[in-house]
């Protein structure tokens, strides 16, 4: 699979393949006369499953905290559920069904019950039962589950796709690389791999067919090569490359505590994007000069019910007290992100529907609680700014600002101290906002361009849809000119503007954005040091010329050629 897919996170990894395939287990509708033997099998399988799950729970607790581990406690309870076990035993004894057959039938009944419930949250429990069913049936059929959470040596995960719960169950200490068959540079796996600094290739179609569990695999996510069971010479070459890369990372480390400056001393602050306080370590380790996008969805998605004010304040404070400045984005759910306790109507086009600020206007209490928590958490912080996502028109900004004022009045009335001078800004991620930037700039204190969505809305191309991936093109000059329009409007109005989408962390485009005069670039922490090092070798005048040339280009390929020429000439 040498050149399949896209490199989503840089680096080199060598390890054993572990596939994560959600295979359906086949169960034959058979009878077993030896009831005693079947019952014994059942008890053993339940016991082994419980032991596995206890290990997984402990791993999850260690690597991600007790909240993530709770789900596995529930799984343990389900495995040992007296009602379910009783029904299985009754089938084994009464109808003389084989243990796997009986277990499968009972589990399926429960899966049906939950799948047919109206409540989305309960519906999802069907997935939990499917999870434990797979594990128990595997043991009942005398096999051992293929369990990536229990790996204990250097491993490269190969999967069709990884869901957040898949990654939650991984023991990251031993995961050295990822390969997935689907997904683009902004997929969950890609973003997570960059946040953790683990090399990854995504969208490698048919990857699962090219490997078997236990194969040795060398993943080169620098020059885009994947070697399955390489010969000794290749393996040695890759090991050398891996150690050379580690040395390179150490040289980058020298830039950790430095300010980002061009060769002629122009500042280009490089900020980090943050998905949850757990990622703060990566932010400080990579020397971020601030946080340009603090996503707050984690608080809402990791819990069964709306997090209360105190919980939110605590989480926000943890971030505000570690790094400054911080731009915190208010809740952006809807689209592909839903939370169980907010009922969302089924929409034909969720990305064009009620998401982000649109949803917050409808869930006003939820929005106000978040604003309250932010204002209180920032009470001693001068450098916290609030950013509103998915603004399309001026009236939305005015409405949001009046809600902020309302919250402030309530806090005044309750004599609660909060931050009175807080900047309010907006994401520029809908083309209409970029085109109307001049009017919007009069209403707010700053802009930040969310390129991931801006590209998707500008070219009408779903960023997760591989069939239109040719349109999801960050090098397109139309996009760059649109961003330039927003920048000119911002600077004319005297407010600052940054970029917080994935493109800010792509070296080539970061150079263009620096040359354009962006006031900060916010990216995955793992991209910061390399861009800082590169900018230190370049003159600001040269970068400006690069941007000017790029803005005059007609298409993406031309932009790529111009940037390549620039790098050849200047680096």
């Amino acid at each position, binding site marked *: 699979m040498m050149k399949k897919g896209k490199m989503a996170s840089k680096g080199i990894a060598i390890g054993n393949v572990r596939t994560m395939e959600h295979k359906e287990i086949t169960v034959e509708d058979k009878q077993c006369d030896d009831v005693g033997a079947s019952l014994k099998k059942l008890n053993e399988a339940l016991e082994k499953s419980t032991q596995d799950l206890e290990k997984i729970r402990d791993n999850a607790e260690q690597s991600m905290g007790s909240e993530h581990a*709770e789900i596995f406690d*529930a799984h343990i*309870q389900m495995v040992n559920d007296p009602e*379910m076990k009783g029904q299985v035993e009754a089938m084994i004894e009464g109808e003389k069904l084989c243990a796997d057959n009986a277990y499968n039938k009972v589990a399926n009944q429960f899966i049906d019950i939950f799948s047919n419930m109206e409540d989305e*949250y*309960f519906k999802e*429990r069907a997935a939990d039962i499917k999870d434990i069913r797979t594990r128990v049936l595997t043991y009942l059929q005398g096999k051992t589950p293929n369990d990536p959470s229990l790996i204990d040596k250097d491993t490269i995960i190969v999967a069709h796709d990884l869901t957040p719960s898949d990654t939650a169950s991984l023991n990251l200490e031993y995961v050295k690389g990822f390969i997935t068959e689907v997904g683009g540079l902004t997929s969950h796996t890609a973003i997570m791999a960059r946040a953790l600094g683990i090399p990854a290739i995504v969208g490698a179609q048919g990857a699962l067919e090219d490997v078997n569990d236990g194969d040795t695999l060398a993943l080169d996510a620098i020059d885009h090569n994947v070697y399955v069971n390489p010969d000794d010479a290749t393996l040695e070459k890759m090991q050398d490359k891996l150690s050379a890369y580690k040395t390179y990372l150490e040289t980058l480390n020298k830039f950790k505590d430095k300010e980002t400056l061009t060769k002629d001393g122009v500042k280009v602050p490089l900020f980090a994007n943050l998905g949850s306080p757990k990622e703060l370590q990566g932010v400080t380790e990579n020397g971020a000069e601030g946080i340009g996008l603090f996503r707050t969805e984690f608080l809402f998605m990791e819990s*069964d*019910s709306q997090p209360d004010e105190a919980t939110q304040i605590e989480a926000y404070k943890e971030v505000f007290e570690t790094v400054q400045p911080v731009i915190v984005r208010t809740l952006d759910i809807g689209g592909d992100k839903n939370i169980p306790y907010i009922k969302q109507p089924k929409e034909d086009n969720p990305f064009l529907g009620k998401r982000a600020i649109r949803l917050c206007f409808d869930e006003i209490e939820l929005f106000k609680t978040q604003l309250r928590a932010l204002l209180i958490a920032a009470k001693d912080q001068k450098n916290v700014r609030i950013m509103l996502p998915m603004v399309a028109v001026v009236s939305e900004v005015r409405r949001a600002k009046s809600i902020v004022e309302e919250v402030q009045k309530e806090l005044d009335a309750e004599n609660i101290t909060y931050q009175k001078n807080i900047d309010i800004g907006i994401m520029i991620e809908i083309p209409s906002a970029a085109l109307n930037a001049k009017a919007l700039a009069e209403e707010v204190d700053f802009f930040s361009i969310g390129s991931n969505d801006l590209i998707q809305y500008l070219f009408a191309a779903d960023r997760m849809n591989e069939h239109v991936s040719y349109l999801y093109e960050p090098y397109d000059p139309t996009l760059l000119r649109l961003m330039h329009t927003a920048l000119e409007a911002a600077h004319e109005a005297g407010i600052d503007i940054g970029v917080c989408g994935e493109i800010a962390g792509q070296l080539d485009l970061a150079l263009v954005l620096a040359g354009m005069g962006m006031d900060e670039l916010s990216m995955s922490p793992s991209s910061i040091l390399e861009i800082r090092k590169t900018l230190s070798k370049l003159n600001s005048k040269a970068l400006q010329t690069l941007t000017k040339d790029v803005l005059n280009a007609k298409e993406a390929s031309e932009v790529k050629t111009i940037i390549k020429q620039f790098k050849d000439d200047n680096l």
Partner: protein
Amino acid sequence: MKKKTIVITDEAGLHARPASKISKKASEYPGDIKLIFEGKEIDLKSILAVMSLAVPQNGEVTLTVDGGDEDKTMQGLLDAFGEQGIDIKED
């Protein structure tokens, strides 16, 4: 046998995470513990049975305890509802 009827006033009803904690708590007691909702009687020690009831807001459920220290068990269970943030109203 001890018997008590309560109303789940919590906005989300008896939802999954607290249900699992309450079921776990029930497993700690030796007695036979049942939960009755709309005529369906289930074993409170079974998380799957509890969840499959899907008790909504204002659902009226009856708890019964048979065996063991019944008073202690009943109080322990009622406390567990409280600890899980499930608002209840005792009849």
